[in-house]
């Protein structure tokens, strides 16, 4: 029984082939002789194999960060480390990743029976298959272009053996690759990507600001703005903690053509009422004034907010004047 207990404790290591040859031989011998442990081992392996088919769940970034922080806290670190440029390529990782790289990341999760080599560098993807932009994915080697293009940055490499699959191995890694998505301005994928970058606070403020500036430069002269973009900007204006980003968002909302969506108008009113930054409030009231000037109907909430602002003694005088000017544009 003591031997059974010891073998069962070692089963996880046996599964990933990390036992010493002697212990592995002993364990297998016992499993063959002991019916109970044999049954346990069969169940163990079946579970392990079944797990391969489970869908990959995306770990929320904050949970992931918190987990890594906990792990990090337990790991002793040198107090001083030399400061070096990033971007060194790791030969080991490159060698290991020969079968998987850039093309694989693009066609992840897809079934491409006969992948054609992608031309040149950078990789240009023109497939009719939809390419996921996802945090985690599992792909088969057969779906990966064997050519490694450029010097992709591969980090956190782990090597896996897949039990009961002849000669199969797994190589897991983080791949930082530069992707260029091209498409029409109004393509839903382009719009969604822009909205994601603008709103995702995991990104640097500069990335968010640049995305918003880009929207301002490219979406203000052509017809009505896409509702998704307007919604994203409204969210940024309402929720982003970074004042510079909020200023950019309200500037962009102000410059977008067409009648603003209710979400945007609500965000402007909210900003005018509550934003602590006077520059945001000025731009919000300017945007509402533009709306009034364009003849957009002013609902009661907008009128009330403007009226309250115009009369608010402790508000910046310029904001008050702008609110009054906006009200002056109201027509029957």
């Amino acid at each position, binding site marked *: 029984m003591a031997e059974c207990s010891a073998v069962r404790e070692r089963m996880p290591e046996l599964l990933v082939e990390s036992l010493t040859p002697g212990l592995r031989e002993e364990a297998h011998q016992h499993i063959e002789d002991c019916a109970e442990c044999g049954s346990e081992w069969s169940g163990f392996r079946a579970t392990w194999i079944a797990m391969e088919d489970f869908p990959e769940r995306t770990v929320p970034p904050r949970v992931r*960060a918190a987990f*890594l*922080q906990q792990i*990090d806290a337990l790991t002793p*670190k040198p*107090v*001083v*480390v*030399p*400061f*070096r*440029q*990033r971007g060194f390529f790791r030969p080991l990782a490159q060698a290991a990743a020969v079968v998987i790289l850039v093309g694989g990341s693009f066609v992840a999760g897809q079934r491409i029976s006969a992948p054609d080599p992608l031309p040149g560098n950078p990789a240009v993807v023109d497939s009719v298959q939809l390419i996921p932009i996802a945090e985690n994915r599992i792909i088969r080697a057969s779906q990966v272009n064997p050519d490694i293009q450029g010097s992709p940055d591969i980090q956190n490499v782990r090597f896996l053996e897949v039990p009961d699959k002849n000669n199969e191995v797994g190589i897991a890694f983080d791949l930082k690759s530069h992707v260029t998505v091209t498409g029409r301005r109004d393509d839903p994928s382009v719009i969604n990507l822009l909205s994601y970058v603008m709103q995702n606070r995991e990104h*640097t*403020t*500069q990335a968010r*600001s640049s995305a918003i500036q880009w929207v301002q430069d490219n979406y203000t002269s052509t017809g009505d703005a896409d509702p998704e973009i307007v919604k994203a900007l409204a969210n940024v204006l309402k929720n982003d*903690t*970074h*004042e*510079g980003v909020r*200023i*950019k968002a309200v500037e962009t909302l102000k410059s977008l053509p067409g009648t603003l969506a209710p979400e945007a108008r609500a965000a402007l009113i909210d900003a005018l009422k509550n934003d*602590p*930054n*006077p*520059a*945001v*409030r*000025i731009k919000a009231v*300017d945007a509402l004034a533009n709306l009034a000037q364009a003849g957009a109907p002013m609902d009661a909430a907008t*009128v009330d907010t403007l*009226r309250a602002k*115009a*009369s608010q*003694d402790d508000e*910046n*005088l*310029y*904001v*008050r*004047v702008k*609110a*009054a000017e906006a*009200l*002056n544009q*109201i027509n*029957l």
Partner: protein
Amino acid sequence: MSRSFSFRPIAVGTLLIAATAASALAAVHSAHKQTWSHEIDPGGSLVLINTAGNVDVVGTDDKAIKITAVRIIRGPDQAALADGRSKVDIVLGGNEQERVVRTRERVTADKAPRWTSAVNYTIEIPRTINLDITNLYAEGIRIREVSGRVNLKTVMGKIQLQGLRGEANVDTINGDISGSFDRPPTADLHFSTVNGQIEVRLPRSSQFRWFAQSMRGDILSNIPVQAKFTPQERSVLANVNGSRPWVKLETIAMTGRVFLIDHDQPSIPSRSLIPTQLQIAETEPPSNRGSSTEVNATLNRIRKKYMIQPPSARTFARHDSVVLEDFEFRTTLGNVLVGEVRGTAKVFTRAGEIILGLVGGRTEVHTGGGPINLGDIGGPLLARTSAGDISIRAARKGGDLATSGGNVQVVFNGGPLTVLSGGGDISIRHTVSRVRAETRSGDISINISKDVRTEQIDAKTIGGNVILSVPPGFAADVDATIITSEESANAIRSDLSGLSILREKAGEGVRIRATGKLNGGGKPLQLYAEDGDIRITTQKAP
């Protein structure tokens, strides 16, 4: 030729007939009159809620309310009129203590109606009852001979009050308010308008405490008053005809003028109660303001030549195209535009945008709120705004720039420069001199010109990134610090080697500090960011 010759008159004639018919159709309207009469208690109330239409209320000695309503529907055709008639009605409710009259429009937000409606009310009421009226849009609202309390709220329409005896609270957005009282007031009166003007006529002997305010307009009276003026609020406070009056008159106009007039001698000239030196914006001669054509021409000229941000203002308290000497201007309210100043410039406005295209000498600009938009500034620069962006195309001698909230952008800086923002990004696109930049929340990006070998830079943001772009051979003693709540979230990165990084706990977060010498060391480079990255990038070699 012959075919077009014969066709054109027919086509033109047809179009004319069609246009005439269309315009006739567009003017289709219907009017429907209804009357009601209801008893009400002498101390009761009448509540009237109307979206659009005129209202005329008069107090009588009768004991009943008599309401006459004329519902007018306008539309392009009969079908639209029929639709409007079916969707606009008048609802009466309440009891003898409170009667409610409401105009009801059943329209859905997703589909704009093809008609417009207005309901004009003429109402006779027992003079002692209270009135509570909300009437958004009107050409006029008149209330006469009422001794009960009057509450009135409107968006637009001229308001006339005559012979009121009781308390009155009147608030409008774009309407003028005119109150005429042939007897001294015996209850508090509160009148406020955002964009209209207020005129109150009272007997000269009336005793009351008067508070009047106008942010942009004047406050005038032809009744002698000893008024105390408060510049910050642009308001006056006066006890009229008595040291301890118990009746209050409040007249608050945001942009319009306020008048207090002798009821019996209205033709006596009024006197402004605002000190002369604070009336600059209003008394500026029209020639100095410039026509809109001139203003646009100046704006276009300086925008193309000097500006990095398009000016947002279009009307100006002061407008000059070119000033050959020194220029100084102060105003309580208004945007200031000057194309070129060959000498020094000094501009102050309590609220408004300041736009200067070119200034040859020292420049001081200060606004209590509004953007500052400057072109090429040849002398030292001092620019402050309590709220708004600051955009400078060239600060050739550097200067001090400060905003309580807003982005600051400088394309070229040629002298020691200090930039402070209460919240917003700071961007210095090219500097050849020392820079100190600090923002409460926002990114700081500074680009040091390629010919500079070493220069002192201090950049600090309490929430954001610091991005410094330096020439390849740039030398400095670096002390860069970030405070971050998650160590993995933020980092210090440098394209130049020679820095060592120290990580340590700082309260709930982590302090990451990089120190070292770039290219053998030079002037101090102090960079600080909370919850952001610090990046030192090198420019491409020429």
